[in-house]
């Protein structure tokens, strides 16, 4: 589409945001194509925050993957806030828009 030429991602975060947008708009097509088109797990979490592999240990943040635990403990604050994210394909399709940052915006999500 023409708009892709008008807006070009420069840094890694911008690429991640774009990937997210592509994933959302092509969700159905991606499912039909066995999900290979998406660079992220389909049907579980749809944002680039981690959270689908659980951390069995009893330390904080409980329930997140190893990588996200490391991120959480990093000294530079919340560069990647790890959080279990809601299902963005069926029940919370506008999740990435109403909750772009889980740590901050989680109250806006209406869990069923």
């Amino acid at each position, binding site marked *: *589409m*023409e*708009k*892709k*030429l*008008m*807006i*070009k*991602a*420069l*840094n*890694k*975060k*911008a690429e*991640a*945001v*774009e990937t*997210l*947008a*592509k994933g959302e*708009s092509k969700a159905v097509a991606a499912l039909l194509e066995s999900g290979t088109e998406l660079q992220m797990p389909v049907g579980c979490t749809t944002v680039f925050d981690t959270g689908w592999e659980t951390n069995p*240990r009893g*330390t*904080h943040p409980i329930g997140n993957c190893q990588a996200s*635990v*490391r*991120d959480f*403990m*990093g*000294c*530079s*604050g*919340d*560069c*990647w806030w790890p959080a279990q994210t809601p299902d963005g394909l069926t029940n919370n399709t*506008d999740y*990435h*828009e*109403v*909750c*772009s*940052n889980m*740590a*901050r*915006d989680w*109250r*806006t999500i209406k869990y069923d």
Partner: protein
Amino acid sequence: MKHEWADHRIFQAKDGAILYGVDHASLFLVDSSVQEVISRWVSEPTVDLSKASESDRDVLEGLRDILLLKPAGSAKTWPPVRFDPEEFPMSTMVLEVAQDCNLRCTYCYAEGGSYGGQARLLDSETAREAARYLVRESGDLKDLTLVLFGGEPLLNMPAIKAAVLEAEKMASAAGKRLLVSLTTNGTLLNAEIVSFFRDHRVVVSVSLDGPPDLHDANRPYASGKGSYAKILSRVRGLLENHTAAVAARVTLTPDQWSRCEEVFDHLMALGFHEVGIAPASPISKDLLPDLEQEKVLLQSFAAMARRFSRVAREGRILPFANLIELLGRLHMGQTKAVACGAGYGYLAVDAAGEFYLCHRLAGEKGFEVGNLETGADPEKIRSCLGHVTAGKDQMCEKCWARTLCSGGCHYENHLRENALGIPPGSSCNFILSWLQIGIELYADLRHAGADKLLAQFEKRTGC
């Protein structure tokens, strides 16, 4: 669905404009048509995509896809959620091994190295105890950092050795990796010390302020004699025999800010691997810059950015630490909800075994947050952090740089606001301009196709 604008900022670039999304620290290059659509729509309180013309809608949908337009009534994006210090295990300990110094630097914030009290050295048993505390309290963390600091740490090699050996032993037993770093004035370096650093892979920074006239004016001995000549003779052994990169750490007073490039060149010619330049903290009104001086520093840093850009076109990274650090963060799009790690797994320990929020606040009684015996006191940490960040949320709410800066250095703010009585926000102009230099340089490097070079930052910065 109605949308509203997410905070963003536009900077001009060679081949269009840079669109910076505040919430995610995302950077996009946009062309003039996008800029034109934004300028027409940005003052609308809400954007109804169904009411836009087809060509506008194309652009607006693109902006929605990159999260610059969000559903109307979405949550406020600031302030961020505050963390609880208790949830953070120890990750970095700064050990004040010597609260004493053989130099009397004009801009020293530690009052001649003693941090305002009696000059004293950390005893070796306390050093070992501190090392054990770091490892014991580090929870599941695999990577720990021990920083040896002062005063001049080399005045107390017994404590350095005790801390490093104990921390290595404990970390290794716990299956953790330990990084040890040290900042020295270089006057006491000798072959034995250099060999200890090499054997224990200690990352060393040397405080050196540039050419002799400048350095000696800033960093004299207690006698008043300059320290440059002595350091030069001693630092060679370190530069020639150390396997790790050795950085020069420069501090310049406002009247010296026009000399950044000269200082950088001088130190690189001496053989340092990297140079970082810090403006002196305003420990007194004399060191508080006026607007003209601030402008000079920004011009100097902008000149360094132009050099960075030229060198990058030859496929090399200019080893100017300030820009490397900033470009790394911009490349990854790292956002921050807190200004730094102080109190969140990062603590300083003084010679008496007392904990402080950070190394720069050591000795300030109001920032004492526990001790080796009783451990870190989360209540005190919360209270200190609350004190240094008071009022910042409202102040930062409308600022485009809030997710990159998050309020700035606690110590710097404390000095300006509490010691000098200046209203909050006095360093904002400098910080914003500096971040803009970085953002424009980043876009310029992308424009130049320096993608491989930028990819090197991914490893360095991590996330």
